[in-house]
């Protein structure tokens, strides 16, 4: 099982349990196929209620999130297992991809366009569903349409990415080009 380090260890502004987060992240790391000896760091900025989340390093694998990303939107400032799994699953699949030579040509995250981000997310979250989690597909479709257009082409590409395995960066880039060609 992956070694998970959560910072901070104790929270003062939100009712998060670092132990529970570590437990969830370790389970996700196993399901996405990361090696058992890998180290995953999760850095949480509890001061921010927003939901930004990023993969900031591959060695060690580091995820940085604003506190809102892990919270239960129904009961603000409390932890949501589902939110943790949603965010971490998506980012750890991206980490798995980045460690794969098929993604060697992918630009750094900061250099990705929003359509590239959401295409990669659709590919990652679709796989989360297939490893047994229950992410919201309609939510991801809405994200995708925001960035790729509210078109039949965009919906078709989304379905393809959602149900795909073994894609390369070139595949994702081509998917972005395909929707761009039909965006109004």
């Amino acid at each position: 099982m992956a070694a998970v380090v959560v910072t901070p260890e104790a929270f003062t502004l939100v009712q998060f349990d670092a132990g529970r987060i570590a437990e969830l992240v370790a389970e996700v790391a196993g399901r996405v196929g990361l090696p058992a000896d890998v180290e995953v760091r999760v850095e949480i900025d509890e001061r921010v209620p927003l939901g930004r989340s990023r993969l900031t390093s591959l060695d060690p694998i580091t995820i940085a999130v604003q506190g809102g990303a892990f919270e239960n939107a129904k009961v603000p400032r409390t932890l949501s297992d589902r939110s943790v799994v949603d965010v971490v699953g998506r980012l750890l699949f991206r980490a798995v991809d980045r460690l794969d030579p098929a993604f060697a040509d992918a630009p750094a995250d900061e250099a990705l366009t929003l359509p590239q981000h959401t295409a990669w997310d659709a590919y990652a979250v679709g796989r989360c569903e297939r490893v047994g989690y229950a992410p919201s597909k309609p939510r991801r479709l809405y994200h995708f349409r925001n960035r790729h257009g509210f078109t039949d082409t965009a919906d078709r590409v989304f379905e393809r990415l959602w149900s795909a395995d073994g894609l390369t960066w070139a595949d994702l880039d081509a998917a972005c080009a395909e929707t761009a060609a039909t965006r109004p």
Partner: protein
Amino acid sequence: MKRHMQATELARDERFVRISTEERFNDPRQVPREPGSKRRPGPQLRPERHEAPDAARAMMHAIFTGEIQALEGAGRTCWDFEVGADSPFELKLDMARQCWDEARHCEISVKLGDHMGTEVGEYAENVVLFEAACNPDPVLRLTGVNRALEGLAIDVFNTMREYGQATADPVLEFCEDWMLADEVTHVKMGSDWLRRLTENDPERRARALEFQRVVDKLFSAGGFRGDEDDSPVKLARRFRELAGFTPAEVEEISQLSRQARAEADAAVR
């Protein structure tokens, strides 16, 4: 069935979870500041932001719960007051009409929620809108709800409509535009009844306008709604004027928002 219920008594199914105004305003967390500012009043709904689609989903859900409460508020105004000088028959007819409009808005919001991948009850519900609809004076109730809160709805719908335009989302833009048209009508109803019912009672009119200012300031939410460049929800001046607000009244709301923001800034120093 009794007259004049409390916001705590609002009936909801188990999907809905309520957050009090105190809890919401006492959240010690802050939206990160930008260079040169003390704090940001909230995230802006700009398509270039990474989290914009989720911010739009959250805002749409807040609109949805607001519509439920607006429906409930208009319904209670039908029930709480006997027909009389204070609440003429025609006022109650207007409130019944508003019930239908708000019921449609709830229906639209649920469909939009499906479109945006949002579940009913996904976010906490705050019932401050209904609290304003509990005022025992029908004039104050209408002023607080129809002029202040429905006025805020004009600003919010316009913000969402612009987001729909910017993302080329035909469904969002279409729905927001229709709801915006209704809100202009509701604000106008509030303005007309305020004028009619307080024609010979300047003191009551002053109290009603003061109540509106309190609600307007509360709903400026530390500058969340305002005229500044970084206000997440902008004052929709053109639509407010269509709804019967004078330019001076719109300016006053802008000023209240600046005050609310300054007070919130001072609190985080």
